Protein backbone atom coordinates (compact mmCIF):
# COMPACT_ATOMS: atom_id res chain seq x y z
CA UNK A 1 0.00 0.00 0.00
CA UNK A 2 1.32 3.44 -0.92
CA UNK A 3 2.46 5.62 1.94
CA UNK A 4 1.15 9.16 1.53
CA UNK A 5 2.45 12.04 3.61
CA UNK A 6 -0.25 14.69 4.04
CA UNK A 7 1.59 17.76 5.24
CA UNK A 8 0.34 19.30 8.45
CA UNK A 9 1.25 22.95 8.95
CA UNK A 10 -1.56 24.34 11.06
CA UNK A 11 -3.82 25.44 8.21
CA UNK A 12 -6.80 23.22 8.90
CA UNK A 13 -8.91 20.66 7.13
CA UNK A 14 -6.33 17.94 6.60
CA UNK A 15 -8.84 15.43 7.93
CA UNK A 16 -10.97 15.26 4.78
CA UNK A 17 -7.91 14.72 2.61
CA UNK A 18 -6.80 11.96 4.98
CA UNK A 19 -10.20 10.25 4.75
CA UNK A 20 -10.34 10.53 0.97
CA UNK A 21 -6.83 9.08 0.51
CA UNK A 22 -7.78 6.25 2.86
CA UNK A 23 -10.95 5.57 0.82
CA UNK A 24 -8.81 5.47 -2.32
CA UNK A 25 -6.89 2.54 -0.87
CA UNK A 26 -3.64 4.19 0.21
CA UNK A 27 -2.01 4.56 3.59
CA UNK A 28 -2.03 8.25 4.62
CA UNK A 29 -0.25 9.91 7.50
CA UNK A 30 -0.76 13.51 8.59
CA UNK A 31 2.66 14.80 9.45
CA UNK A 32 5.33 17.47 9.53
CA UNK A 33 8.05 15.08 10.71
CA UNK A 34 11.14 14.56 8.58
CA UNK A 35 11.29 10.79 9.13
CA UNK A 36 7.75 10.29 7.87
CA UNK A 37 8.20 12.60 4.91
CA UNK A 38 11.38 10.70 3.94
CA UNK A 39 9.49 7.45 4.18
CA UNK A 40 6.54 8.52 1.98
CA UNK A 41 5.92 7.36 -1.59
CA UNK A 42 4.15 10.58 -2.41
CA UNK A 43 3.28 13.88 -0.75
CA UNK A 44 0.07 15.91 -0.60
CA UNK A 45 -0.01 19.55 0.47
CA UNK A 46 -3.59 20.46 1.36
CA UNK A 47 -4.61 23.84 2.60
CA UNK A 48 -7.28 26.33 3.24
CA UNK A 49 -6.47 29.76 4.45
CA UNK A 50 -4.42 32.76 3.63
CA UNK A 51 -1.20 32.46 1.64
CA UNK A 52 0.99 34.56 3.96
CA UNK A 53 0.28 32.56 7.11
CA UNK A 54 0.61 29.31 5.20
CA UNK A 55 4.04 29.92 3.69
CA UNK A 56 5.29 31.28 7.00
CA UNK A 57 4.13 28.11 8.81
CA UNK A 58 5.74 25.94 6.16
CA UNK A 59 9.10 27.69 6.48
CA UNK A 60 8.96 27.70 10.29
CA UNK A 61 8.55 23.92 10.25
CA UNK A 62 11.28 23.63 7.56
CA UNK A 63 8.75 21.69 5.50
CA UNK A 64 9.92 23.47 2.33
CA UNK A 65 13.44 22.05 2.67
CA UNK A 66 12.33 18.57 3.71
CA UNK A 67 9.84 18.29 0.89
CA UNK A 68 12.15 19.84 -1.71
CA UNK A 69 14.68 17.11 -1.04
CA UNK A 70 12.07 14.43 -1.75
CA UNK A 71 10.18 16.12 -4.57
CA UNK A 72 12.81 18.15 -6.44
CA UNK A 73 15.84 15.89 -5.86
CA UNK A 74 14.24 12.43 -5.68
CA UNK A 75 11.27 13.13 -7.94
CA UNK A 76 8.49 11.57 -5.87
CA UNK A 77 4.94 12.63 -6.86
CA UNK A 78 3.60 15.78 -5.21
CA UNK A 79 0.07 17.14 -5.23
CA UNK A 80 -0.93 20.57 -3.93
CA UNK A 81 -4.65 21.10 -3.31
CA UNK A 82 -6.28 24.56 -3.45
CA UNK A 83 -4.00 26.80 -1.36
CA UNK A 84 -1.49 23.95 -1.59
CA UNK A 85 -1.48 24.46 -5.36
CA UNK A 86 -1.07 28.21 -5.07
CA UNK A 87 1.90 27.79 -2.72
CA UNK A 88 3.82 26.24 -5.63
CA UNK A 89 3.97 29.65 -7.34
CA UNK A 90 6.78 32.22 -7.18
CA UNK A 91 4.60 34.72 -5.40
CA UNK A 92 1.10 35.64 -4.28
CA UNK A 93 -0.69 38.93 -3.87
CA UNK A 94 -3.18 37.77 -1.22
CA UNK A 95 -3.20 40.33 1.66
CA UNK A 96 0.14 41.81 0.58
CA UNK A 97 2.94 40.24 -1.41
CA UNK A 98 4.40 36.89 -0.39
CA UNK A 99 7.09 34.65 -1.83
CA UNK A 100 5.91 31.10 -2.55
CA UNK A 101 7.82 27.84 -3.02
CA UNK A 102 8.61 28.75 -6.63
CA UNK A 103 8.46 25.17 -7.90
CA UNK A 104 6.14 26.09 -10.77
CA UNK A 105 6.69 29.48 -12.41
CA UNK A 106 3.81 31.85 -11.92
CA UNK A 107 1.89 34.20 -9.68
CA UNK A 108 -1.27 34.01 -7.60
CA UNK A 109 -3.68 36.88 -8.13
CA UNK A 110 -7.27 37.65 -7.24
CA UNK A 111 -10.07 36.59 -9.57
CA UNK A 112 -11.51 39.60 -11.42
CA UNK A 113 -15.21 39.91 -12.23
CA UNK A 114 -15.69 39.78 -16.00
CA UNK A 115 -19.35 40.75 -15.67
CA UNK A 116 -21.37 42.34 -12.86
CA UNK A 117 -23.31 39.13 -12.18
CA UNK A 118 -20.17 37.10 -11.47
CA UNK A 119 -19.62 36.44 -7.79
CA UNK A 120 -16.32 36.09 -5.97
CA UNK A 121 -15.29 33.83 -4.21
CA UNK A 122 -15.83 31.23 -6.92
CA UNK A 123 -17.80 28.67 -4.93
CA UNK A 124 -19.34 25.51 -6.29
CA UNK A 125 -19.09 22.92 -9.04
CA UNK A 126 -17.49 23.95 -12.29
CA UNK A 127 -15.94 22.33 -15.35
CA UNK A 128 -12.33 21.18 -15.54
CA UNK A 129 -11.23 21.27 -19.19
CA UNK A 130 -7.92 19.56 -20.01
CA UNK A 131 -5.38 21.52 -22.04
CA UNK A 132 -3.16 18.46 -22.48
CA UNK A 133 -3.37 14.73 -21.96
CA UNK A 134 -2.48 14.31 -18.29
CA UNK A 135 -2.25 11.07 -16.31
CA UNK A 136 -4.06 12.92 -13.52
CA UNK A 137 -7.25 13.13 -15.61
CA UNK A 138 -7.40 9.53 -16.85
CA UNK A 139 -10.98 8.25 -16.77
CA UNK A 140 -12.45 11.69 -16.03
CA UNK A 141 -14.67 13.11 -18.76
CA UNK A 142 -13.34 16.45 -20.11
CA UNK A 143 -15.55 19.20 -18.71
CA UNK A 144 -16.54 17.19 -15.63
CA UNK A 145 -17.65 19.34 -12.69
CA UNK A 146 -15.39 19.46 -9.65
CA UNK A 147 -15.78 21.48 -6.46
CA UNK A 148 -14.10 24.88 -6.11
CA UNK A 149 -13.96 27.41 -3.33
CA UNK A 150 -11.40 30.20 -3.78
CA UNK A 151 -10.89 33.90 -4.53
CA UNK A 152 -7.35 33.73 -5.93
CA UNK A 153 -5.95 31.80 -8.88
CA UNK A 154 -2.64 30.63 -10.30
CA UNK A 155 -1.36 32.42 -13.40
CA UNK A 156 1.28 30.26 -15.07
CA UNK A 157 4.28 31.93 -16.61
CA UNK A 158 4.80 29.00 -18.97
CA UNK A 159 1.87 27.62 -20.93
CA UNK A 160 3.19 24.06 -20.69
CA UNK A 161 2.54 24.06 -16.94
CA UNK A 162 -1.16 24.67 -17.54
CA UNK A 163 -2.78 21.23 -17.61
CA UNK A 164 -6.43 22.27 -17.32
CA UNK A 165 -8.57 25.37 -17.19
CA UNK A 166 -11.99 26.29 -15.84
CA UNK A 167 -14.44 28.77 -17.37
CA UNK A 168 -14.96 31.47 -14.74
CA UNK A 169 -13.85 35.10 -14.69
CA UNK A 170 -12.64 34.73 -18.24
CA UNK A 171 -11.08 31.34 -17.54
CA UNK A 172 -8.37 30.38 -15.06
CA UNK A 173 -5.87 27.57 -14.59
CA UNK A 174 -7.35 24.77 -12.52
CA UNK A 175 -4.53 22.20 -12.78
CA UNK A 176 -0.81 22.95 -12.97
CA UNK A 177 1.94 20.43 -13.52
CA UNK A 178 5.69 20.18 -13.94
CA UNK A 179 7.12 16.67 -14.19
CA UNK A 180 6.26 14.96 -10.86
CA UNK A 181 4.71 18.10 -9.33
CA UNK A 182 0.98 18.79 -9.63
CA UNK A 183 -1.43 21.31 -8.20
CA UNK A 184 -5.24 21.42 -8.40
CA UNK A 185 -7.33 24.48 -7.56
CA UNK A 186 -10.44 22.40 -6.82
CA UNK A 187 -10.94 19.97 -3.94
CA UNK A 188 -10.73 16.37 -5.18
CA UNK A 189 -11.41 15.16 -1.63
CA UNK A 190 -14.79 16.91 -1.77
CA UNK A 191 -15.64 16.18 -5.39
CA UNK A 192 -17.10 12.73 -4.89
CA UNK A 193 -16.54 10.20 -7.71
CA UNK A 194 -14.55 12.36 -10.12
CA UNK A 195 -12.41 13.71 -7.29
CA UNK A 196 -11.62 10.22 -6.04
CA UNK A 197 -10.70 9.16 -9.58
CA UNK A 198 -8.19 12.00 -9.74
CA UNK A 199 -6.73 11.04 -6.36
CA UNK A 200 -6.44 7.42 -7.47
CA UNK A 201 -4.71 8.58 -10.66
CA UNK A 202 -2.24 10.56 -8.57
CA UNK A 203 -1.63 7.64 -6.21
CA UNK A 204 -0.92 5.42 -9.24
CA UNK A 205 1.86 7.70 -10.58
Amino acid sequence: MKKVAILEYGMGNVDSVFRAVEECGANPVITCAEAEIKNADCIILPGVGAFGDAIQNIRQRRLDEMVAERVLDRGIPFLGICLGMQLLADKSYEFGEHRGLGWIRGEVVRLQQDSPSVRIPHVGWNEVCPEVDSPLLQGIRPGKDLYFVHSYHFVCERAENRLATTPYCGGFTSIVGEKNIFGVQFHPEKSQRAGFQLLRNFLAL
Partner: protein
Amino acid sequence: MLKVRIMPTLLYRDFELVKGVGFDSWRGVGSAMQAIRVYNMREVDELIFLDITATREERDPDFELIDDLADECFMPLTVGGGVRSLDDVRRLLDVGADKVAINSEAVRNPELIREVAQRFGSQCVVVSIDVRKQASGRYEIFTHSGHRATGVDPVVFVKEAARLGAGEILLTSIERDGAMEGYDLVLIQQVSEAVDIPVIASGGAGIYEDLYKALTIGNAAAVAAASIFHFTEQTPLAAKDYLYSKGIPVRF
Protein backbone atom coordinates in the same frame (compact mmCIF):
# COMPACT_ATOMS: atom_id res chain seq x y z
CA MET B 1 -20.03 27.39 -16.28
CA LEU B 2 -20.51 27.51 -12.54
CA LYS B 3 -23.48 25.37 -11.53
CA VAL B 4 -26.10 26.46 -9.02
CA ARG B 5 -25.97 24.45 -5.82
CA ILE B 6 -28.85 22.73 -4.10
CA MET B 7 -27.95 22.31 -0.48
CA PRO B 8 -29.93 20.20 1.97
CA THR B 9 -29.84 21.77 5.42
CA LEU B 10 -29.54 19.58 8.50
CA LEU B 11 -30.63 21.18 11.77
CA TYR B 12 -29.35 19.50 14.91
CA ARG B 13 -30.88 19.74 18.37
CA ASP B 14 -30.94 17.41 21.38
CA PHE B 15 -28.96 14.63 19.66
CA GLU B 16 -31.09 14.39 16.54
CA LEU B 17 -32.00 16.21 13.36
CA VAL B 18 -35.09 18.37 13.56
CA LYS B 19 -37.17 20.60 11.37
CA GLY B 20 -39.56 23.28 12.54
CA VAL B 21 -41.87 25.95 11.21
CA GLY B 22 -40.86 29.56 11.71
CA PHE B 23 -38.00 28.50 14.04
CA ASP B 24 -40.51 26.76 16.34
CA SER B 25 -42.61 23.55 16.57
CA TRP B 26 -39.61 21.28 16.09
CA ARG B 27 -40.11 17.74 14.82
CA GLY B 28 -37.49 15.02 14.92
CA VAL B 29 -36.45 13.84 11.48
CA GLY B 30 -33.83 11.21 12.27
CA SER B 31 -30.15 10.68 12.87
CA ALA B 32 -27.48 13.00 11.55
CA MET B 33 -25.11 10.20 10.56
CA GLN B 34 -27.78 8.41 8.57
CA ALA B 35 -28.75 11.60 6.74
CA ILE B 36 -25.14 12.33 5.84
CA ARG B 37 -24.62 8.81 4.52
CA VAL B 38 -27.74 9.01 2.36
CA TYR B 39 -26.86 12.44 0.96
CA ASN B 40 -23.32 11.25 0.34
CA MET B 41 -24.59 8.27 -1.62
CA ARG B 42 -26.87 10.55 -3.63
CA GLU B 43 -23.94 12.89 -4.34
CA VAL B 44 -25.67 16.12 -3.37
CA ASP B 45 -23.81 19.34 -4.17
CA GLU B 46 -23.10 20.45 -0.63
CA LEU B 47 -24.47 20.09 2.90
CA ILE B 48 -25.21 22.58 5.65
CA PHE B 49 -25.20 21.33 9.24
CA LEU B 50 -26.38 23.72 11.95
CA ASP B 51 -26.44 23.05 15.68
CA ILE B 52 -29.37 25.31 16.45
CA THR B 53 -29.24 25.33 20.25
CA ALA B 54 -25.49 25.73 20.86
CA THR B 55 -25.55 29.53 21.08
CA ARG B 56 -28.68 29.75 23.23
CA GLU B 57 -27.30 27.15 25.59
CA GLU B 58 -23.92 28.88 25.53
CA ARG B 59 -22.35 25.62 24.41
CA ASP B 60 -19.31 25.11 22.20
CA PRO B 61 -19.83 23.29 18.91
CA ASP B 62 -19.79 19.51 19.40
CA PHE B 63 -16.39 18.90 17.81
CA GLU B 64 -16.48 15.13 18.33
CA LEU B 65 -19.81 14.82 16.58
CA ILE B 66 -18.65 16.96 13.65
CA ASP B 67 -15.49 14.86 13.42
CA ASP B 68 -17.55 11.67 13.08
CA LEU B 69 -19.95 13.21 10.56
CA ALA B 70 -17.23 14.78 8.43
CA ASP B 71 -15.45 11.43 8.17
CA GLU B 72 -18.45 10.14 6.22
CA CYS B 73 -18.94 13.27 4.15
CA PHE B 74 -17.11 13.39 0.81
CA MET B 75 -18.92 16.49 -0.30
CA PRO B 76 -18.48 20.06 0.89
CA LEU B 77 -19.75 20.57 4.42
CA THR B 78 -20.64 23.87 6.09
CA VAL B 79 -20.92 23.68 9.85
CA GLY B 80 -22.51 26.26 12.13
CA GLY B 81 -23.94 26.75 15.60
CA GLY B 82 -22.15 28.08 18.65
CA VAL B 83 -19.18 29.51 16.74
CA ARG B 84 -17.80 32.32 18.86
CA SER B 85 -14.06 32.52 18.30
CA LEU B 86 -11.15 32.04 15.97
CA ASP B 87 -10.32 28.91 17.92
CA ASP B 88 -13.82 27.45 17.36
CA VAL B 89 -13.30 27.95 13.62
CA ARG B 90 -9.86 26.38 13.69
CA ARG B 91 -11.16 23.33 15.55
CA LEU B 92 -14.13 22.88 13.21
CA LEU B 93 -11.86 23.06 10.16
CA ASP B 94 -9.48 20.63 11.85
CA VAL B 95 -12.19 18.00 12.32
CA GLY B 96 -13.30 18.25 8.70
CA ALA B 97 -15.66 21.20 8.16
CA ASP B 98 -14.93 22.91 4.85
CA LYS B 99 -16.68 26.10 5.79
CA VAL B 100 -17.88 27.54 9.04
CA ALA B 101 -21.14 29.43 9.42
CA ILE B 102 -21.05 32.27 11.93
CA ASN B 103 -24.38 33.75 12.94
CA SER B 104 -25.04 35.43 16.33
CA GLU B 105 -21.40 36.22 17.03
CA ALA B 106 -20.90 37.80 13.59
CA VAL B 107 -23.64 40.29 14.40
CA ARG B 108 -22.41 40.90 17.95
CA ASN B 109 -18.76 41.20 16.93
CA PRO B 110 -18.30 41.68 13.17
CA GLU B 111 -14.51 41.92 13.63
CA LEU B 112 -14.53 38.13 14.03
CA ILE B 113 -15.37 37.91 10.32
CA ARG B 114 -12.18 39.78 9.47
CA GLU B 115 -10.05 37.71 11.85
CA VAL B 116 -11.30 34.42 10.44
CA ALA B 117 -10.95 35.58 6.83
CA GLN B 118 -7.39 36.74 7.34
CA ARG B 119 -6.37 33.59 9.16
CA PHE B 120 -8.27 30.89 7.23
CA GLY B 121 -9.32 32.70 4.05
CA SER B 122 -12.64 34.21 3.00
CA GLN B 123 -13.64 31.00 1.27
CA CYS B 124 -14.40 29.27 4.57
CA VAL B 125 -16.39 32.10 6.16
CA VAL B 126 -20.14 31.78 5.73
CA VAL B 127 -21.96 34.58 7.47
CA SER B 128 -25.40 33.26 8.34
CA ILE B 129 -28.24 35.62 9.12
CA ASP B 130 -31.81 34.94 10.19
CA VAL B 131 -34.19 37.66 9.14
CA ARG B 132 -37.72 38.48 10.24
CA LYS B 133 -40.05 40.77 8.34
CA GLN B 134 -41.61 43.26 10.73
CA ALA B 135 -45.25 44.39 10.53
CA SER B 136 -43.97 47.66 9.08
CA GLY B 137 -42.48 45.68 6.17
CA ARG B 138 -38.95 46.41 7.39
CA TYR B 139 -36.50 43.51 7.60
CA GLU B 140 -34.52 42.89 10.79
CA ILE B 141 -31.81 40.39 11.76
CA PHE B 142 -32.57 38.15 14.74
CA THR B 143 -29.85 36.14 16.48
CA HIS B 144 -29.88 33.25 18.97
CA SER B 145 -32.00 31.01 16.73
CA GLY B 146 -34.41 33.79 15.99
CA HIS B 147 -35.01 34.66 19.63
CA ARG B 148 -33.15 37.94 19.94
CA ALA B 149 -33.98 41.10 18.02
CA THR B 150 -30.95 43.14 17.00
CA GLY B 151 -32.39 46.15 15.23
CA VAL B 152 -29.84 45.48 12.48
CA ASP B 153 -30.88 45.86 8.86
CA PRO B 154 -29.83 42.84 6.77
CA VAL B 155 -28.76 44.84 3.71
CA VAL B 156 -26.54 47.14 5.77
CA PHE B 157 -25.08 44.20 7.64
CA VAL B 158 -24.24 41.98 4.65
CA LYS B 159 -22.38 44.85 2.98
CA GLU B 160 -20.29 45.21 6.11
CA ALA B 161 -19.81 41.42 6.36
CA ALA B 162 -18.59 41.26 2.76
CA ARG B 163 -16.23 44.17 3.33
CA LEU B 164 -14.77 42.39 6.35
CA GLY B 165 -14.09 39.28 4.27
CA ALA B 166 -17.15 37.01 4.40
CA GLY B 167 -17.04 34.44 1.60
CA GLU B 168 -20.75 33.69 1.40
CA ILE B 169 -24.03 34.74 2.97
CA LEU B 170 -26.52 32.16 4.18
CA LEU B 171 -29.79 34.08 4.27
CA THR B 172 -32.73 32.56 6.12
CA SER B 173 -36.19 34.04 6.36
CA ILE B 174 -37.55 33.13 9.78
CA GLU B 175 -41.24 33.31 9.00
CA ARG B 176 -40.87 31.47 5.68
CA ASP B 177 -38.76 28.74 7.28
CA GLY B 178 -40.61 25.42 7.26
CA ALA B 179 -43.77 27.00 5.85
CA MET B 180 -43.07 25.51 2.42
CA GLU B 181 -44.89 28.36 0.71
CA GLY B 182 -41.94 29.84 -1.18
CA TYR B 183 -38.84 31.89 -0.38
CA ASP B 184 -38.99 35.57 0.51
CA LEU B 185 -37.96 36.72 -2.96
CA VAL B 186 -37.84 40.42 -2.10
CA LEU B 187 -35.43 39.77 0.76
CA ILE B 188 -33.22 37.53 -1.39
CA GLN B 189 -33.19 40.10 -4.15
CA GLN B 190 -32.22 42.94 -1.81
CA VAL B 191 -29.40 41.00 -0.19
CA SER B 192 -28.08 39.53 -3.47
CA GLU B 193 -27.98 42.99 -4.97
CA ALA B 194 -26.11 44.42 -2.00
CA VAL B 195 -23.05 42.14 -2.28
CA ASP B 196 -20.78 40.50 -4.87
CA ILE B 197 -20.25 37.35 -2.81
CA PRO B 198 -22.55 34.33 -3.28
CA VAL B 199 -25.85 34.38 -1.42
CA ILE B 200 -27.46 31.10 -0.37
CA ALA B 201 -31.23 31.48 -0.08
CA SER B 202 -32.90 29.57 2.73
CA GLY B 203 -36.39 29.26 4.19
CA GLY B 204 -39.59 28.45 2.39
CA ALA B 205 -39.03 25.94 -0.40
CA GLY B 206 -42.11 23.77 -0.87
CA ILE B 207 -41.94 22.90 -4.56
CA TYR B 208 -39.20 22.92 -7.19
CA GLU B 209 -40.54 26.10 -8.69
CA ASP B 210 -39.67 27.89 -5.44
CA LEU B 211 -36.02 27.00 -5.97
CA TYR B 212 -36.23 28.29 -9.53
CA LYS B 213 -37.71 31.59 -8.38
CA ALA B 214 -35.07 32.10 -5.68
CA LEU B 215 -32.35 31.60 -8.31
CA THR B 216 -33.91 33.72 -11.06
CA ILE B 217 -36.09 36.39 -9.45
CA GLY B 218 -34.10 36.43 -6.21
CA ASN B 219 -30.76 36.10 -8.02
CA ALA B 220 -29.40 33.72 -5.36
CA ALA B 221 -26.23 31.75 -6.18
CA ALA B 222 -27.43 28.68 -4.34
CA VAL B 223 -30.52 27.38 -2.59
CA ALA B 224 -30.73 25.66 0.76
CA ALA B 225 -33.77 23.61 1.69
CA ALA B 226 -34.86 21.17 4.36
CA SER B 227 -38.61 20.48 4.74
CA ILE B 228 -39.08 19.85 1.03
CA PHE B 229 -36.57 16.99 1.29
CA HIS B 230 -37.54 15.77 4.79
CA PHE B 231 -41.32 15.79 4.47
CA THR B 232 -42.14 15.28 0.79
CA GLU B 233 -41.21 12.86 -1.98
CA GLN B 234 -39.18 15.59 -3.66
CA THR B 235 -35.40 15.05 -3.90
CA PRO B 236 -32.33 17.16 -4.72
CA LEU B 237 -31.81 15.11 -7.90
CA ALA B 238 -35.37 15.63 -9.19
CA ALA B 239 -35.02 19.32 -8.29
CA LYS B 240 -32.02 19.46 -10.62
CA ASP B 241 -33.97 17.78 -13.41
CA TYR B 242 -36.63 20.44 -13.02
CA LEU B 243 -34.14 23.33 -12.95
CA TYR B 244 -32.24 21.90 -15.92
CA SER B 245 -35.48 21.77 -17.92
CA LYS B 246 -35.90 25.48 -17.17
CA GLY B 247 -32.41 26.30 -18.45
CA ILE B 248 -30.61 26.63 -15.09
CA PRO B 249 -27.04 25.22 -15.03
CA VAL B 250 -26.95 22.31 -12.58
CA ARG B 251 -24.50 19.51 -11.96
CA PHE B 252 -25.38 15.89 -12.60
